[in-house]
Each structure stands twice: as C-alpha cells, then as structure tokens.
C-alpha cells in the first residue's frame, strides 16, 4: 500500500531530480523551444517541496492535489497547467483514502494523463510529455521499475519525431532530431516514483 508519506517522497525526489537535471532540460529546450524548461520546473517543484513541508497533507490524494495547485500557481508557461493538472487530477482520482494500492494509483495516474491530453490536445507521437507518460502508465502494472524504463524509452523515442504541439511545432521538420524536453522531464517524474518506492 502507498501512503501520504510515499507521495511526499515522490514529490521531494522529483524536486531533487529536476534540480540536478535543470541545466540539461534547459539545454534540450534550447534548439526547439525557448531555453527555460529546466528553470521553470525547478521553480515549481522547489515550491511544491516547500509547501508540502509546511502543510503536511495527510492523504495521498491531498498531497498530489496540493502539489498540482502549487505547480499551476508557480510555473507558468504550458508546463505549469499541464504538470499541475496531471498531479491534481491524479490526486482527485485517489479520493480521500489514507492509503491506496498500486492498482488504484495506476488507475488514478491514467486519469491524470487523460486530463493532460484533453487540456493540451496532444496525442501519443506529437513529441510531447505524453510520449513518456502514456508508456509509463501502460507499464505500471509491471511495477515502478518497468514504468521508469518505459518512460525513459518513450522520451528517447521522441528524437526522430516531428513536433505537432507546443512551441517546437513551429519549427516543422526542423524539430526532428531533438529529444523533447517535456517528455524528458516526464521521465524524471516517473523515475522519481521508482526512487520513492526504493527501486
């Protein structure tokens, strides 16, 4: 079973990982975006970690909805509403239980990813965060480590794709050959999940 403490560890592990990888995310965002993905997420997840420490929400759902709201209020850009919605909707789907099973979490995360697709209008193959998140959710049934591997593979697989959503889409064919920064940060989020689970 996964409790509120697990979800707090997930968020703090994400904050630490985004902190470590901020420069790489910004560098990936440079040729096909506007060179700020790392610093934006760094600001957001730092705020999430601080808020969770202050508020100490007691259920898994409350941890994720608080984290989502915090991202929406601090990140801006497209990443703020998209990552914020991912966590907020996942948290809402978890309800008010003090512990949730891995299956319940997998279902909730799928609801979160669906909400991101609805909000941003992106589908798999559009070279966005969805290309890491959908395989991650699909693989979650095989455990957190499998989910992490699937997300990383999904992020790497965005390199040959032409972007059809977000700022990279303005480049047309010139977006081909670059790994998507959003898919890359999504893979970090999923990797932090495995880390929080001790894998």
């Amino acid at each position, binding site marked *: 079973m996964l409790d509120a403490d697990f979800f707090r560890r997930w968020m703090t592990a994400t904050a630490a990982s985004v902190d470590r990888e901020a420069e790489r995310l910004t560098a990936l965002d*440079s040729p096909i975006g506007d060179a*700020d993905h790392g610093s*934006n997420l760094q600001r957001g997840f730092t705020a999430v970690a601080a808020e969770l420490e202050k508020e100490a929400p007691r259920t898994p759902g409350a941890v994720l909805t608080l984290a989502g709201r915090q991202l*929406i209020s601090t990140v*801006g*850009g497209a990443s*703020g509403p998209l990552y914020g919605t991912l966590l907020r909707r996942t948290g809402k789907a978890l309800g008010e239980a003090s512990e949730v099973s891995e299956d319940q979490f997998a279902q909730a995360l799928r609801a979160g990813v669906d909400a991101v697709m609805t909000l941003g209008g992106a589908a798999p193959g559009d070279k966005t965060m969805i290309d890491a998140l959908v395989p991650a959710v699909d693989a979650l049934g095989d455990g957190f480590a499998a989910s992490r591997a699937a997300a990383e593979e999904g992020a790497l697989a965005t390199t040959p794709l032409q972007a059809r959503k977000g700022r990279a*889409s*303005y480049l047309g064919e010139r977006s081909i050959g670059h790994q998507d920064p959003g898919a890359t940060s999504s893979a970090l989020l999923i990797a932090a999940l495995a880390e929080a689970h001790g894998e």
Partner: protein
Amino acid sequence: MKMLINVAETVVADALRGMAAAHPELVVDVDNRVIVRRDAPVAGKVALVSGGGSGHEPLHGGFVGPGMLSAACPGEVFTSPVPDQMVRAAAAVDSGAGVLFIVKNYTGDVLNFDMAAELAEDEGIQVAKVLVNDDVAVTDSLYTAGRRGTGATLFVEKIAGAAADEGQPLERVEAIGRQVNENARSFGVALSACTTPAKGSPTFDLPPGELELGIGIHGEPGRERRAMMTSGEIADFAVGAVLADMTPRNPVLVLVNGMGGTPLLELYGFNAEVQRVLAERGVAVAHTLVGNYVTSLDMAGASVTLCQVDEELLRLWNAPVKTPGLRWGM
C-alpha cells in the same frame, strides 16, 4: 554573453521595481507580478487585461494606461504568467462592466488565461477573451499549435482599449478586438538569436552570413534559413509573405517592429523599403509606427505587421493614449 543584470533569478522582479520607480502613474505589485493603472477600476468602463512572458518589453506592461490596457501580468522570461496573477489583475481593474483578456496564441498563455477566466468568473467577474494569432510564418495550423500572436497584439490592445475608453460594452470591445486580429497579419525575421538570462548564451546558432525567416518572439528559430539579404530584399520577402495571406481593401496600419537588438537607424531604413513594397503592391497606408514594441530580448531583426482599418478602427487607433510605451493625444 554579458548582461546588465544582477542574477538571472531576479531579472523580472528587478525590472518591475525599476518600472515602479519610473512610472508613478502605474501601481506595480512586484511580489504578485501585476501592473495596474493607478486610477483603476474606472467606473462604468470595460477593463482590458493582458500578459505574457517577460522579454517582449514594452509589451505588455508598457501598454498599461488610459486608452490601452488596464493591467498587465508579466511572467518569467518567455514564460506565460500564472492564473493567480490574471485573477488578481482582473479583480483589481473590474468596475463591474467586465474584463477582456487579450491572449497571444501560445499553448502556455492560452492554458493559463483559460484557467484564470474560470476562476475570475467564480468570483463574479464577467470575462471575455480575444486570442491574437497573426503570424503568417506558421503555415500549417493543423500540425502546429496554430499561428502565433506577435505584432498585432499592439493593434488589438490599442484599438480595443480605445473602444473600452469610450464606454463601449464588453461584447462590443471583444468584437472590435477580434476584428482587429482578423484584419492583421505579421511576418518576422531574425539576424541573430536572443540570449535568455536563464541560459546566458544565444538560444540558437545563427552564423554571421545567414538570417532566419519566419521567427516568433521567443528566440525560437524560424521556418527557414537563408544567406543574408539586404533590407530591400527582406522587405520584399516579409511584406510578400503577409500579402500572400491578406488582400487589403482598406488602408492599413503598418508596424515596423524591432526585435530588440536592431538600431532605429536600421528600422527606419527598413521601413522605407516596406513602404516601397506596399506602394508597388498598391496598398494604401493609413499610419505607420516604427520602433521596438514587441521584442524578443536582444534579438536583432524586425517584423512587419499590417492591419486593415475601416473608418471606425482608424478613429479608435487615433484616439488618445497615455502609456509608457505608446503615447499621443494626451
């Protein structure tokens, strides 16, 4: 790249503090990142709120004041502001006559303003939205995030602002804003990439002998790269791209806009070429504005925006305006 800053993290806050000191006619809330005209809310009048990433100055904060915006929300550099800022701005300027959000068509801006509109409506504020998408360099709207909002934003903010100032109701101010956007088209070129404070080096590599055609305003590369052209050749290309997408029946407003790193001397020279092309194509010019208005940090280059105006829109364009970035008639 050397920059006149302290540290990258405080660039926006530092600029807002400086803006507050220079413009006592504005209320600049540095912590909450909202710029509001001091006399807001103006009784009985529709309020205009816009915002977007920083790095495009004077857009949007420099266009706050009588006859234009009621408030602006600056985000981080090239990053949309957050819904909290927009709701705060709307609440500060709403007189009860409603608020018009003017939103440039970028995924982040659209998502955050949509969330803000919902939240503001929950607080009992009537909100309407105008989306600005004038950039003809984005040709394939089906497989992209759609045309970007660039130079036409200035025309929308000025003309809708004048309509609001006259006391026109929200539906009418919104309709005028939409009409201005529909009548406007832009095309931009870059001679150099820009440098964001967070990265500290140019966002893309543009060799000395080349230029980038069809750029946006976020340091993103354009659609196509070519060997460097003369001012006249660039004017032929840019105005040609705009006129391939619109056939003006009425006179046009012309914005020859610098991207931030090109001297006014060059912009005026470029404007001479733009006017030559317009004359050759038989397009009548109602008014021309030359300067750095919708910028992309230190990027060298320029964009051309044409906006067809009938008598009503031209009258609203000429109406008095008093903002840090645009001022006439008062």
